[in-house]
């Protein structure tokens, strides 16, 4: 097999050339790359916004921007990071590319629907950002857009909800494709307990997504009704319920947290065994805990359906569920660490980034427990403690897993190897910068510094100033890693089929893969993480 026959040269459907070969493709791999570029664009944009906010916070009072600019920036940063990075990144890029391959299939079940999802994503993303700029004044309510603040003050909220709906549709269709591919396209020889963990995690996520998206659809209908007919759904003086919107919003957004974190855990479950040269410890436990997280996520959701408003009972149930979700998460961390134990560790950038993930995600989870304990929550709620906590989960967790996935699968996707040294330097800078940026934020939050202010009381200045250096180091590291990867595209396509010694199916085919993925029928292992062959080869 020569590189000339890879999916990068051959189009699907065949015969398309130039831009048509990309914009009208049915190939799940090309779509994965198209998502990659779009999502990287949004991510870099939002990272720069984050850095600008931090720069403003480095000095008391007005440093580089006033309150209006700051408020619109955290709104934009939040919207992009949640809807255009956190939720779609891993499933849309790596899921699209690798889920069919890991299942031994030649594409997803509905290739054209897959293309449609990409267009919905592009359209929804543009629309989301456009909606923020349209209307009378940029919304400053944060990414949660609380009605009645927003319904009356900013005309653009209906547009933003529309955008969220379009994006929700896009990820729901992707989820649908994953579920159907999982069931209908899987190689006949592959039983449920022979499926790679990344694919399992995407499968669990897809169900949560399919469940949650109807809520945003209904919210969309309600907000539009309210805007154009003024029937007073959210207006208590017209018999409406002002908390209805908030309620629906969290019904969608609570599961979104699981949608953001589950695929990241799937990535780590692939990388840890590959570089430990050792079968994953507790494969079944990881599968079941993925499903457990998905089910717990759905329970939170069902609980929202059951009661509106936060009565004491719902606060209790919610706290309890938050604690319960910690159990399957802890099971995974335990499995990863046990896998490494006595493994023959081969250090590499993706493995290093996975270690960062485990560490940062664990801290994020522990701070989450502090928040989940409803009592303590009151002290720190709406402070920088909360902001730091979800950055630990979303950037330290999903963000680092995203970079680990990039470094793990880059050679497979593009057929090129990247330079290791800049990757290590970037990863270390990002991890160290992360800690120096977000640990001060945890402390400031415990001291009572409220979130969403461009300014603060004098006693918070030192902490905020020091955190700034962490942020610059963090962003330097992230950009260095990205640039290193992008520059590697100029290298010759000489990546071997299996540069890391991975055992799942994508490593059994050439890099980059041919259009049809498998030219011979895939050789399904009894157990997806069986390293005996790899180890005996390397001992020869």
């Amino acid at each position, binding site marked *: 097999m020569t590189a000339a026959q890879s999916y990068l040269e051959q189009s699907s459907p065949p015969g398309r050339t130039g831009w048509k070969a990309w914009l009208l493709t049915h190939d799940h791999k090309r779509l994965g790359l198209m998502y990659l570029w779009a999502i990287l664009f949004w991510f870099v944009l939002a990272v720069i916004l984050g850095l600008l906010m931090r720069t403003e916070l480095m000095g008391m009072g007005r440093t580089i921007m*006033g309150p209006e600019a700051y408020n619109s920036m955290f709104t934009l940063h939040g919207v992009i990071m949640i809807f255009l990075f956190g939720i779609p990144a891993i499933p849309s890029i790596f899921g699209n590319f690798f889920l069919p391959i890991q299942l031994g299939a030649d594409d997803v079940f509905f290739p054209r629907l897959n293309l449609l999802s990409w267009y919905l994503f592009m359209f929804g993303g543009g629309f989301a950002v456009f909606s923020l700029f349209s209307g009378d004044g940029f919304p400053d309510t944060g990414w949660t857009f609380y009605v009645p603040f927003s319904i009356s003050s900013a005309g653009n909220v209906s547009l933003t909800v529309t955008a969220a709906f379009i994006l929700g549709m896009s990820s729901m269709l992707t989820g649908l494709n994953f579920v159907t591919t999982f069931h209908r396209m899987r190689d006949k020889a592959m039983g449920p307990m022979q499926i790679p963990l990344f694919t399992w995690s995407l499968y669990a996520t897809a169900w949560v997504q399919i469940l949650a998206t109807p809520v945003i659809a209904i919210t969309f209908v309600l907000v539009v009704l309210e805007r154009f007919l003024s029937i007073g759904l959210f207006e*208590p003086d017209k018999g409406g319920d002002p908390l209805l919107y908030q309620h629906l919003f969290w019904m969608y957004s609570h599961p979104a947290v699981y949608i953001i974190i589950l695929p990241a855990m799937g990535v780590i479950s692939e990388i840890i065994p590959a570089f430990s040269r050792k079968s994953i410890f507790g494969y079944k436990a990881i599968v079941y805990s993925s499903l457990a997280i998905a089910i717990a996520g759905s329970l939170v959701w069902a609980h929202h359906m059951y009661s509106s408003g936060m009565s004491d009972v719902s606060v209790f149930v919610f706290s309890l569920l938050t604690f319960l979700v910690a159990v399957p998460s802890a099971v995974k961390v335990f499995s990863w660490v046990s896998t490494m134990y006595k493994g023959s560790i081969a250090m590499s950038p993706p493995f290093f980034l996975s270690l960062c993930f485990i560490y940062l995600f664990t801290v994020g989870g522990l701070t989450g427990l502090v928040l989940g304990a409803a009592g303590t929550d009151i002290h720190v709620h709406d402070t920088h403690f909360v902001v730091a906590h979800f950055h630990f989960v979303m950037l330290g967790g999903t963000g680092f897993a995203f970079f680990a996935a990039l470094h793990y699968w880059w050679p497979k996707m593009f057929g090129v190897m990247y330079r290791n040294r800049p990757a290590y330097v970037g990863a270390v800078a990002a991890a160290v910068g992360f800690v120096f940026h977000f640990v001060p934020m945890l402390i400031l939050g415990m001291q009572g510094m409220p979130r969403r202010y461009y300014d603060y009381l004098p006693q918070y200045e030192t902490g905020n100033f020091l955190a700034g250096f962490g942020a610059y180091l963090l962003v330097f590291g992230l950009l260095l890693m990205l640039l290193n990867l992008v520059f590697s595209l100029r290298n010759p396509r000489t990546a071997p089929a299996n540069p890391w010694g991975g055992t799942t199916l994508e490593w059994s085919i050439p890099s980059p893969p041919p259009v049809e993925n498998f030219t011979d029928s895939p050789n399904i292992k009894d157990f997806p993480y069986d390293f005996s062959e790899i180890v005996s080869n390397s001992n020869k």
Partner: protein
Amino acid sequence: MRFALGTLVFILTLLLHAGGGGPACAHGPPADGGANSAAAVGKGGQEHDSALSMTDARAPKEWVEEKTGAYLPLELVFRDEDGRPLSLEGIVDKPVLLLPVYYYCAGSCSRNLANLAIALGRLKSVPGRDFRVVAVSINDREKSEDARRAKKTFIKLAGGKIPEGEWRFLTGDREAITTLTAAIGYRFEQQADGTFIHPSALVAVASDGRIIRYVYGDFIPGDVDMAVYDAGRNTPSLSVKRLLDICFNPDPNASKGVVLAVKAGVLAIFAAFTAAVLLLYRRRGGRRDRNQGVKE
């Protein structure tokens, strides 16, 4: 496939169970008069509505229209806890946190007062020295006895963090109330059962009566501190939009229909979606496999 179906059945069961349960009230205990339609709006707030200059009649009216930078009418006279007349001039001589509520509220007023009382104990600034708190009843039927009783409760809750004279509980006649609320852009409406619909917001005012900042949500200590800090420097500033809590006496039946419709809608979409998937499976003729027949 069997697994997927199992999940589906499980979820549907949950949902149906959920559909049967009635919605709990939005917040606050349902009051005795709950059966009255919440849609019936009393005359209470009508007069100052026009003052809020809403041009488009169909556009939803703001509950709070921030008047940051404007000045309070300090000549207004209210009654203090002992029924003596008290002009705002007499108490706005240092930064003031102004909180419009009413003392016998079935909704979130007492929770707001309690949140504030708790926050007072966790501030960086010193209550009494750096600022004073003024609660004003928006209900012109409330008497100074009601104010006195409320004061006792919440001063106690603040646990000695604020000197008694530094947290005032005022009552007033309708004209003083509506002039004040209009000046701070605060809309409230009386319902047929005598309760009020009103937003929960706190207004920080500088010592010269200038409106500095609005505080929303649960009155977390950090927010209160920032408001006091800005009021001390007399710099009007953009408020941070946390949740805008609307205090009202919920009619447990009013939104039941909407909530049920929402649940039915979610179920319907979910069902339609599942049906579409099953249909598509059929049309595809089951398993689409690249190496169909190649392997067992």
